[in-house]
């Protein structure tokens, strides 16, 4: 059986991305047409039954999110698509934005219809400048063909989509920071409560979902929840776009059904195809820089929300960064931490100060200056970051460190003794060469 299952990526590369005609020829807008004949609550139930979990990284049940917003009476409600794909090693939204924008638009129209929204916003990261143009063209063509704008498909329903963009801040991927950025404010996360479903964009109730989540909506409505669920595992419905990168033979985006194993993803010939240059796998970093690092012993874990979580791992954004034996984990962690030092918004103490201090100690390890007492400090810093940071950025920033320390403690210990097993750290002289 094939380990690849193109469901939401089926059109990618097969049609002209902004062509409504070609999109319709491959079954596009079927979900929308069906949805417009359904009650909003039926649509929400269908999504709930499909067990679609948010594909941005936090895996919040999409149906519940929609239900919560639906229960709020205040209007207008806004629909926002989070296309600020900033997680390193993650480029799956890019694929959809670039190759099948109308699928995302269709999902956003269905959401707009459910909440009777007049306006939807898609926040596309600043670095995806060319994609923004293509996406705008897709919006324009959808308007021209009656799928957006006034009286959609002859109904009373009117809905417009707007593209917004940031200046390139990772933290704007955090939904409340993203809304601040749309509003023209600095992209820093908001105090919660109130939650975005209550007080979101411009102070109004707001739905924020990831690109891939919206891309799944039309498929769920058009094939039905039951069929959709059958593609995955009982708890994790459907498929997942996985982004393979690092020292793997076939890097790229692959759509896999939940239920394959990590080994399949990294080694299957249809997927990663194994480690480059005949080297051995050392670890894999899941879900982006904010995710956990897994070791060889976890390779046979099933790729689904439940099994990964049970093994201290998670799906996250869908990134799978593969690192071979030539990599020093501490050196790698310094890169990860440098990223968070750069991207922390700076408002809360644990994230602003913690990342700095974490880096300083890791740096000591790679220079042979660390002592065993540094383990205590590392634990204190990573604990306070995980438990007391303001938003997901700080809470997750030390995840890679925590999992690496657990899986590669001996490598840390070796550095205390002035040895870098991968031969990356210290000068040649220090290494005794």
């Amino acid at each position: 059986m094939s380990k690849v299952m193109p469901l939401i990526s089926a059109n990618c590369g097969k049609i002209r991305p902004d062509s409504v005609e070609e999109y319709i020829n491959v079954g596009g807008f079927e979900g929308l047409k069906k949805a417009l004949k359904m009650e909003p609550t039926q649509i929400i139930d269908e999504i709930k039954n499909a067990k679609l979990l948010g594909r941005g990284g936090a895996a919040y049940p999409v149906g519940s999110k929609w239900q919560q917003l639906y229960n709020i009476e205040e209007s207008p409600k806004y629909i926002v698509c989070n296309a600020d794909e900033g997680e390193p090693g993650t480029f799956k939204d890019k694929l959809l934005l670039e190759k099948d924008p109308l699928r995302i638009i269709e999902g956003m129209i269905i959401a707009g219809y459910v909440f009777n929204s007049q306006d939807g916003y898609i926040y596309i990261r600043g670095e995806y400048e060319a994609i923004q143009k293509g996406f705008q063209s897709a919006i324009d063509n959808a308007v021209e063909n009656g799928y957006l704008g006034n009286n959609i498909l002859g109904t009373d329903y009117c809905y417009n989509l707007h593209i917004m963009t940031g200046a390139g801040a990772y933290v704007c991927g955090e939904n409340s920071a993203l809304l601040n950025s749309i509003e023209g404010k600095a992209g820093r996360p908001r105090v919660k409560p109130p939650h975005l479903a209550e007080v979101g964009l411009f102070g109004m109730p707001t739905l924020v979902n990831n690109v891939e989540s919206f891309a799944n909506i039309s498929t769920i409505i058009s094939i039905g929840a039951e069929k959709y669920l059958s593609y995955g595992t009982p708890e994790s419905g459907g498929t997942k776009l996985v982004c393979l990168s690092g020292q793997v033979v076939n890097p790229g985006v692959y759509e896999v059904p939940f239920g394959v194993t990590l080994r399949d993803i990294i080694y299957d010939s249809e997927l990663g195809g194994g480690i480059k240059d005949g080297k051995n796998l050392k670890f894999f970093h899941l879900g982006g820089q904010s995710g956990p690092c897994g070791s060889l012993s976890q390779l046979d874990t099933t790729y689904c929300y439940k099994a990964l979580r049970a093994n201290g791992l998670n799906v996250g954004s869908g990134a799978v960064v593969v690192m071979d034996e030539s990599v020093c984990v501490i050196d790698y962690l310094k890169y990860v931490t440098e990223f968070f030092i750069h991207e922390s918004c700076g408002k809360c103490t644990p994230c602003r100060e913690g990342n700095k201090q974490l880096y300083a100690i890791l740096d000591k390890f790679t220079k042979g200056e660390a002592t065993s007492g540094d383990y205590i400090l590392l634990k204190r810093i990573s604990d306070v970051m995980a438990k007391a940071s303001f938003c997901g950025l700080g809470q997750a920033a030390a995840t890679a460190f925590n999992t690496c320390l657990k899986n590669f403690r001996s490598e840390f210990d070796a550095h205390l003794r002035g040895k870098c097993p991968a031969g990356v750290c210290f000068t040649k002289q220090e290494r005794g060469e």
Partner: protein
Amino acid sequence: MNDAVNINKNITVTIDGIQTIVPEGTTILEAAKKLGIKIPTLCHHSDLKPGATCRVCSVEVKGQRRLKTSCNTPVADGDEITTNSKAVREARKTIIELILADHPQDCLKCVRNGNCELQKLAYEYQIREVPFERTVKDLPIEDSNPSIVRDMNKCIKCGRCVEVCQEVQQVAAINTSFRSGEFKISTAFNESLADSPCVYCGQCITVCPVGAITEKDDTDRVWEALDNPDIHVVVQTAPAVRVAIGEEFDMQAGSIGTGKMVAALKRLGFDKVFDTNFTADLTILEEGNELLQRITEGGVLPMMTSCSPGWINYIEKFYPELLPHVSSCKSPQQMFGAVAKTYYAEKAGISPDKIFVVSIMPCTAKKYECTRPEMRSSGYQDVDVVLTTRELARMIKQAGLDMGALHDEEYDDPLGTSTGAAVIFGATGGVMEAALRTVYEVVTGQKLENVDLKMVRGLKGIKEAEVDLAGTKVKIAIASSLKNAKEILEKIKAGECDYHFIEIMACPGGCLSGGGQPFGTTNAIREKRLEGLYNIDSSLKLRKSHENPAVNKLYEEFLEKPLGHKSHELLHTHYVGRKY
């Protein structure tokens, strides 16, 4: 929000094993406080919206993976909260140490030594060493304006100053900028405060938990004058100082410290201790008559008060087109300076160039006001130095004076005589009440029996009333805080305003919570200081400005009449729009 919290709904929670019932919407911090549990805070301020940025107030909530910040998290029914577990203590200690690693730790040399929220927390958590790498930077100290000094090396990024500047005052001179370790509080494009919209109200100082924002210390200049035998140093004290100075010496907020303060000033060596209240009465005579003139002669209405220099800076910067509405009267501080270096100089037979006028003010904008080039009516800078309440307290402490043990003393004549109408200038609504007491009697020719005009009192941000002056209805409004001032100004601009007279104070609650007052001002303390001022007023025999015998004598001997030629020369000013 619209899903308004049902205040009737009660919630049962357990905090540290003690069960309690609180109204829905109560935060963990508030609920714990009711049980006598003081959760430590740093970025939280009782008058401001919680920012939840420092994370010091983190607590454990059973069933939650992460700690919750108690300042902004409402309790939920059945919550089991632990505020003092090992995990909580360790997290808090780490947070404090992380902050300290990025802090100069030069407490001994800090103006907030002994009065710093971070220092107190470090003490409570028994921080003996900071195990983390020192990351404090060497940022330049901003002291290029006469009022406010900003040392961002000491800033702990709590965001309170931003909240007060953005939300309470809506001046928005400062905001957060940059990210991560570079994250800081700054003006737009890091320009100087002088080039920013800042109006020097100093509310940012009053909410700063550490020594990052302070007034510009001018005590050395005053010591120098006091030490110089050739200079005659006179001092004036603003109304609101007397009900706050005691807080610096462990007295209750709102306790009346007038007599002890006067005694202390004399001990410090001031040649004459005068009262800004004297010129507050004088202001009423000038401003009251200006109002009547505007009403009867078709002048620009509504007329707005001009006592508050933060407010004047604000309207000059933000609404220059409305400047004709502002009374031409100088503030009482500046009237005092002009009178001291002319009338008093003549009377005392001292050349004005040998007179040094010091003001004790609850205000930081006053420091800027006295340096304005137009404030030289005497031919010299009318007021030489302005000290805040806090700076005076520092001088008293330096001089080794035991405030509590000092016996009350009286202000000197002639510029020390005042009425109850003057002392209430220190509270929002006070200038209005004082003006009405006088205007009523001038217009009606009748005696105002009940001088307690309660409709203009209290801390409410905007107050409106209509007063019947023998058939003429006078519509008035009072606003304190610049956000509320802005609301009124927008109404005037839109032509939706039929007031005759508007009192505006830059600081919320008026001068009693000015930027120069003792640290720790909260709404509760505002109430106490307010009460103190009205208590002084009601205890006095003379409660109407026009009954001030010394002011009347000033007119007889020197000024001739309100709005007269000499008054215009010395007591009135003009305004200009200012760019930022």
